[in-house]
């Protein structure tokens, strides 16, 4: 538990010091992130041996206490958050254009601290507070892109506040009904009555809005596409996963089984629609970063589908698929956004069309984009493929489940289409867009690093699958 707390407090204290002392941020943040990653890895190692640990803040006992809960899954997500921040910071320290100003450094640390607190929180109200911290930091990061991003940032903030208030309304109703906020205690008490249904509905709608799950995703593309490249990477890879985690906690831990089963079908259908609509919009997007942002909407559809089917069939193995999707998508999306940022900066245009001949002018960045895209499509042997494999296995075992597999297939085709749209344009060498200046090789390699890691996941596939199946129970 101490190591997990260290992984939370390092970025928090670091952010405050950076704001007060204003040193040149990059080097410090890389060191903070590295230490935080190591601490999270230590925490994961520890929790795998001892099992779930609890910390009662301030020493209060169970019903009144604010509890921190370190489960193996929380530790894994902690490591994932710190690791992705480290990868993004390495790139951002090299490419100053991708961060939109020195204020990026303290804000990214705050974002990491908010996420770490979210994974560790064990009661509903604490989760509300961390959600708000998360969206405030995220909005401030979007606004770094300058005047043209203020409007999407404001829209993001207002919608995200509306989502939080819907969630808070649900929390108030649950507390009024049961008199506890702790998730472990609520899971024993919850019954399928009117108040609980209303509370779960409000909380789910609020969280779906915050996680940009279909059909409440429309704020995401302008906000994620308008932000600086490194910020978009963090937002798409991590920030939308926070509300998703709470949604998972809510329905798999608190909700009574019969409610969860009926809601699961709706979630799964929404997931299929997200895959199709997100994929279609990505295919038609005129700007490169809008394309990548819509691909986030589509990829969240897989997570939603896994969540829905998990609830509908009460099939615990699908939780592993859900979390593996989150990990694989996070790594691939970081790489994709960083490569897109590098491409649009060097080629001097935001349009997809400007990528003509990029395989000649910027082969490394285009390769990073394609490699990340391969994992999003689910080509073997990548992390995305492993997640899809886990999702498809229970679908194939019983003939009446096959229609869902068609949804997954269509989603895969859509993601293949938008990835190949970019890659095919890159290989159209007839009249390539010239680079505005000499491409930065090291930055392109740093953008590729997360994509290579997601393909490395496949090298350890068997132990990984077994292990993640145990972790996400």
């Amino acid at each position, binding site marked *: 538990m101490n190591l997990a707390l260290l992984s939370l407090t390092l970025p928090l204290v670091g952010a405050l010091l950076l704001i007060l002392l204003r040193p040149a941020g990059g080097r410090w943040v890389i060191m903070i992130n590295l230490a935080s990653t190591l601490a999270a890895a230590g925490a994961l190692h520890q929790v795998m041996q001892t099992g779930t640990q609890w910390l009662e803040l301030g020493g209060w006992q169970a019903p009144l206490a604010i509890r921190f809960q370190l489960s193996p899954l929380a530790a894994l997500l902690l490591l994932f958050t710190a690791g992705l921040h480290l990868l993004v910071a390495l790139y951002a320290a090299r490419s100053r254009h991708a961060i939109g100003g020195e204020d990026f450094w303290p804000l990214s640390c705050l974002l990491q601290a908010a996420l770490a607190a979210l994974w560790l929180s064990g009661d509903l109200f604490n989760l509300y507070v961390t959600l708000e911290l998360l969206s405030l930091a995220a*909005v401030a990061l979007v606004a770094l892109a300058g005047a043209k991003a*203020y409007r999407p940032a404001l829209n993001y903030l*207002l919608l995200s*506040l*509306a989502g939080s*208030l819907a969630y808070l309304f649900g929390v*108030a109703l649950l507390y009024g009904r049961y008199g506890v*906020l702790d998730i472990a205690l609520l899971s024993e008490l919850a019954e399928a009555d009117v108040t609980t249904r209303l509370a779960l509905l409000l909380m789910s709608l609020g969280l779906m809005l915050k996680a940009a799950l279909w059909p409440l995703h429309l704020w995401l593309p302008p906000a994620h596409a308008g932000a600086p490249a490194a910020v978009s990477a963090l937002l798409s890879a991590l920030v939308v996963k926070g509300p998703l985690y709470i949604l998972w906690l809510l329905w798999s831990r608190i909700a009574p089984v019969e409610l969860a089963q009926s809601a699961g079908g709706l979630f799964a259908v929404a997931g299929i629609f997200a895959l199709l609509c997100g994929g279609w919009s990505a295919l038609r997007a005129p700007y490169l970063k809008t394309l990548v942002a819509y691909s986030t909407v589509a990829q969240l559809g897989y997570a939603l589908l896994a969540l829905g089917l998990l609830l509908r069939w009460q099939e615990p193995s699908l939780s592993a698929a859900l979390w593996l999707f989150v990990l694989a998508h996070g790594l691939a999306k970081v790489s994709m956004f960083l490569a897109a940022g590098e491409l649009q900066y060097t080629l001097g245009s935001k349009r997809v069309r400007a990528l003509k001949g990029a395989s000649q002018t910027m082969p490394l960045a285009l390769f990073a984009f394609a490699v990340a895209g391969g994992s999003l499509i689910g080509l073997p042997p990548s992390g995305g493929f492993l997640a899809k494999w886990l999702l498809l296995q229970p679908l194939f075992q019983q003939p009446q489940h096959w229609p869902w597999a068609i949804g997954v297939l269509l989603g895969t085709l859509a993601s293949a289409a938008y990835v190949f749209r970019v890659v095919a344009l890159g290989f159209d060498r007839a009249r390539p867009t010239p680079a505005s200046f000499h491409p930065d090789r090291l930055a392109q390699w740093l953008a590729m690093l997360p994509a290579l890691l997601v393909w490395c996941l496949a090298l350890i596939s068997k132990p990984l699958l077994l292990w993640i199946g145990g972790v996400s129970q």
Partner: protein
Amino acid sequence: MSTTLFWLAVGALLWLIGLHGLLTLRDALRRIIAINLMGSGVFLVMIALAARVVPSDPVLVALVVTGLVVAVSATALALRLAGSAERGKSS
């Protein structure tokens, strides 16, 4: 009990008015006020639930205080962003 129900209904109504305003209005300042109405609605519901017992439930009151702090800071950020966005448009 009927007083509790009355205030619960008022809170829910405020929340709905705020939500309606957020979805239909275009002006940034009005939308920020709409969000604050939603917030007030939720806080009113929480206080109504807290006042069911004498003395009132300290947990809910503490939650409202925390919620107010969050709402104030979010509103400050929203106002700053809205102001900058307006200035950027006029210049």
